[in-house]
C-alpha cells in the first residue's frame, strides 16, 4: 500500500487541521499552481482518517504525478520570476546577493 495520498484543498484557517488530525496521519502542505491559480497541495498519510480529512476539507484527490506537476508548475513560476528579475549592469553574484539563490525544484514524498 502506498504511504501517502495526495490532494488539493484550500486552507480555511482554524480547525482546517487539528491536533487530532496531526496525531492520526502525516500531513504536509506545498504550494502548487493549476495554470490559473495557486493551490494548496497536500501530502497526506494513507489511512482511513487521512482520506476522510481530505474529503471533509472539500479537497480533490490527486495522483502523486498530478500533485508533483502542480508543485513543479509553482516552482517554474518562481524560477521564471527570478530569471526575469534583472537590474542593469548587475553581475550574477550581485543578483544572488539581491534576490537569494535561484529557487529550485521541490520533490514531494
Amino acid at each position, binding site marked *: 500500500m502506498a504511504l501517502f495520498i495526495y490532494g488539493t484543498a484550500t*486552507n480555511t484557517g482554524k480547525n*482546517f*487541521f*487539528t491536533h487530532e488530525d*496531526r*496525531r492520526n496521519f502525516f500531513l*504536509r502542505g*506545498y504550494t502548487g499552481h493549476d495554470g490559473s491559480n495557486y493551490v494548496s497541495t497536500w501530502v497526506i498519510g494513507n489511512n482511513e482518517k487521512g482520506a476522510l480529512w481530505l474529503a471533509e476539507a472539500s479537497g480533490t484527490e490527486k495522483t502523486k504525478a498530478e500533485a508533483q506537476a502542480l508543485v513543479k508548475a509553482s516552482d517554474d513560476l518562481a524560477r521564471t520570476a*527570478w530569471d526575469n528579475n534583472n537590474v542593469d549592469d548587475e553581475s550574477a553574484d550581485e543578483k544572488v546577493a539581491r534576490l537569494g539563490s535561484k529557487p529550485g525544484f*521541490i520533490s514531494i514524498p
Partner: protein
Amino acid sequence: MSEYRTLKGRKIKTFATDLSGEGAEGQLFFSTAAVERDLKIIVKVDSWASGGNLNSARERLGGSGTQTAGLAFGGNVGTPPAPGLNASNTSEEYNGAAWTEGNNLNTARLAIKGAGTQTATVAFGGSEPATTTKTEEYNGTSWAEQNDMSADRAGHTGFGTQTAAVATADYPAATTEEYDGTSWTAGGDLGTARYGMGAGGTLTAGVVFGGASPVTGKTEEYDGSSWTESGDLNQNRLGLAGSGTQTAALAFGGAPGPSGQVSSERYDGTSWAVAPNLASRRFYLAGCGTQALSLAFGGFSSPSKTNVTEEFTFAFLSKTVTDS
C-alpha cells in the same frame, strides 16, 4: 459483554477533579467534574494545528504576544523576489481563533521586530525599505512613536517586554541595544554577528538562535549584560521564528530551501531536541507564545508570501471517551 474489571483486573476509578499532567497520560477514569459522569482519558498533545489565517499575507513581519492573544505587525506584502517589496503598516490581533485588523503602525516597514504582549508591545527597526532606527509602542489600541534606536537595524531580532526589550545585532555588526520603555542604551555584543535569528526570553534571561551568514545553528544566551554560547540547533537555519524563554524555547521554520523548513526544535536551556513539524513550510515567518503554546504566522514559501497560521500545543489533556 465483558466488563473492564474482567479484562484489566481493576475498576475504573472516579474522580471529582479531572486528572492532569504527564503522569496521568493514558489513564482512563470517570469524571464527576461536570453534572454528568463522563468517561475520560488523558491524551498527550504535541503538534501543530491550523489557526485562523492572517487577513493580509506577508513575510518578514513582526510578532508578539501569546497563542490566544497575538499581535502581527508590518512586513512585506509585495511579491518577492525583490524589487517586489511593499512595506506594510498594518497590524492584526489574534484571539486564538481569528485575526482582526487593528490600527496601523505610523511607519510602514518590513523586517520589523518586537517584544511584549498584545496590549503592550514595542516594535523596532526594519526596512522602509531604507533601514530604520524607528521605535513604536502599541497599547492594545494604537501605535505611538518613541525614541529611536541608536543604530538602524533590519536583520535583527528582538525579545523581552515593552519596558525591558533587547534588539540584537544586524550583520555584520554584533552590537545590541536595550530598551527600558523610554530610551535605548547599548547592550552586550553578540559572540557571533549574524542576521535572521530566532529569539525568546527576557532582557535578563534571553536566548537567540540560528541566523547567517553563513547559515548557522549557533545559540547564545543573554544575562542582561553579556552573551554566552550554548548548544547549537540541530538544523542550521535563518529566517526562523522563536518563542518561549531562555530555559524553555521553541524554534520553528526558517531557510535554507526555497520554500523554507517545517522543522521545529525545543530548547531546555542547554541543548536542542527535535520537536513536531509545522504542516506548512516557510521562512521569514513570525512567532510568539511559550514553548508549550506557540503561534507561527505568515512568512514566505516559494513562490510567495503566506497568510497561514499554525498553533503549537504541548499538553496532557482530558478527552471524553465516546463510542464513535
